[in-house]
């Protein structure tokens, strides 16, 4: 603590406390209830219709957050059935009416689009999707809420929050060959468990985070919710700066990090130097074991994509493993690039061609089969290994199927062998 004029005490803050202090216009710390202005609001096609109906019901007829709002049609995109086509029409008409943005069929996943084009370090973002926590990777506070909460943010441009306590997650060491940020996050989920961080924020620090690409940091923050957390945050640094410059918006960079004496609820320390590739077994994300424990399990489907691992570096590592190889005849490989930009880059770099030559199918940018609506719904007793973030019973559209979660490398190696496979044998 630093004392000024013997009266005003400035308390060292976590990143969450800094952002909530700025956005609520008063000094706040963990545990406080605040009303804060939001910088960005997002919704997806499964949560938008209810949010719109709630706005109509509330009848305020003001949309102070409309300019900050984007409706993303990504979950059932393009629409597989008329009910959803009608939902999409309803969303488009409403977005137009209030002057909000729309990211339509073909543009990609909400969270990838937000990271590429909209979110800045220090922003406060709410989204009607639990994986809104993804762009904490940019040094923002972003959190998922339900349709009604987000509807209110659109109408009032603000909403209420409880400022969370923070768990400091320090990750050190150099990632071994064949081990990726997804494995790091599965290790963290295994430690914290699926409800160990409920209502809390995670701050990721340490030299393994400093050396991690923005793609990897997005994977980590994306899965913060799988520990129950409200947000996962990485301090902004040279990696953030480089990423924003590559996205054509260098002016959006700002440095944000916790103060030296910030208070944390507890700390998790992890050294990843000896970490093996991991998988989460059905039906819970914290059911994590080393890949070798389940090696040889037959897989009917392999899915590479989603807001967790559908980015360029994910598709690149998959292509590197699949180059000159063939997908096992009893296994289907499905790939959904996270966004149009990802898809175009993967195409230019030849990754799409490699995947298709190997026998994979490449779906349009979007959530794909992750939510169990279309583009790869599992059959009874089928097993899928996926780069997504959840393996809950029924997640991919069939409660009588089994989902394993792993890195893109483990998934690509498993596609070739037709069974869960350690990727290290496929990497130089």
């Amino acid at each position, binding site marked *: 603590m630093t004392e000024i004029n013997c009266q005003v005490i400035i308390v060292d803050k976590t990143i969450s406390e800094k952002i909530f202090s700025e956005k609520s216009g008063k000094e706040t710390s963990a545990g406080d*209830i605040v*009303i804060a202005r939001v910088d960005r609001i997002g919704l997806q096609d*499964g*949560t938008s*219709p*209810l949010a719109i109906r*709630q706005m109509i*019901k*509330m*009848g*305020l007829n003001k949309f102070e957050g409309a300019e900050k709002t984007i409706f993303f049609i990504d*979950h*059932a995109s393009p629409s597989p*059935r008329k*009910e*959803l086509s*009608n*939902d999409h029409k*309803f969303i488009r008409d409403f977005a137009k009416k209030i002057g909000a943005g729309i990211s339509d069929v073909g543009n990609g996943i909400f969270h990838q689009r937000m990271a590429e084009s909209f979110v800045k370090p220090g922003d406060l973002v709410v*989204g*009607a*999707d*639990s994986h*809104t926590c993804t762009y904490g990777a940019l040094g923002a506070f972003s959190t*998922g*809420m*339900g*349709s*009604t*909460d987000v509807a*209110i943010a659109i*109408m*009032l441009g603000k*909403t*209420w929050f*409880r400022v969370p306590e923070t768990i400091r997650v320090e990750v050190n060491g150099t990632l071994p060959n064949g081990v990726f940020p997804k494995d790091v996050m599965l290790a963290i989920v295994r430690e914290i468990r*699926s*409800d160990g961080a*409920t*209502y809390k924020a995670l701050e990721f620090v340490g030299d393994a985070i400093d050396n991690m690409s923005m793609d990897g940091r997005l994977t980590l923050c994306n899965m913060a919710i799988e520990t*129950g957390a*409200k947000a996962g945050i990485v301090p902004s640094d040279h990696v953030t700066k480089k990423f924003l410059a590559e996205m054509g918006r260098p002016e959006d960079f700002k440095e944000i990090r916790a103060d030296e004496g910030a208070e944390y609820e507890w700390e998790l320390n992890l050294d990843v130097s000896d970490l093996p590739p991991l998988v989460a077994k059905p039906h*819970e994300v914290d059911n994590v074991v080393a890949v070798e424990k389940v090696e040889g399990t037959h897989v009917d489907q392999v899915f590479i994509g989603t807001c967790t691992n559908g980015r360029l570096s994910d598709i690149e590592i998959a292509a590197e493993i699949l180059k000159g190889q063939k997908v096992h005849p009893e296994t289907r490989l499905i790939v959904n690039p996270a966004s149009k930009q990802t898809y175009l880059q993967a195409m230019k770099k030849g990754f799409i061609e490699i995947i298709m030559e190997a026998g994979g199918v490449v779906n349009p940018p979007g959530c794909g089969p992750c*939510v*169990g*609506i279309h583009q790869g*719904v599992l059959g009874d007793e089928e097993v899928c290994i996926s780069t997504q973030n*959840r393996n*809950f*019973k*029924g*997640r991919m*559209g*069939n*409660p009588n199927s089994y989902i394993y979660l792993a890195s893109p490398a483990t998934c690509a190696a498993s596609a070739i062998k037709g069974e869960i496979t350690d990727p290290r044998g496929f990497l130089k």
Partner: protein
Amino acid sequence: MMKGRAWKFGDNITTDHIIPGRYYHLRSNPDLLAQHLMEDTDPEFASKVQPGDFIVAGRNFGMGSSREHAPLVIKLNDISAVLAKSFARIFYRNAINVGLPLVIVDTSDIETGDQLEVDLKKGIVRVLNKDIELKATPLPEVMLRILDDGGLVNHIRKYGDFKLEG
């Protein structure tokens, strides 16, 4: 005071258990959607459960997606409240927003078929057939205020803005 029968579930009940993602196309038709409540855990649940009954669970009820349809379909089945040892964060807020009461209480001794009496204001749960009285963790002031107004939509309709303090 609320009275009804308990229906017991385990730990980590996800929003996919509560309302499976494959019924995505029914989200704009809540009455049809509500018929699939807890279907993958108990296929007959929506037809067996009676108005006023309680869902009782272990730890971390409602983990997973942000779908507000999860508490909504519970409410549409006229379930009085959900009792659990703990709730996932987004579900917790969504439930209060749609006006579905949640009770944080040690549910270890409650079983399916038990007759419950819940006093939300006092935070007391009575298992009538077992003569047990359980003390619930009180909901935060903000949540009680929103719940008292019948959910967040009614709160905003009433005040035109947030009115979270006395």
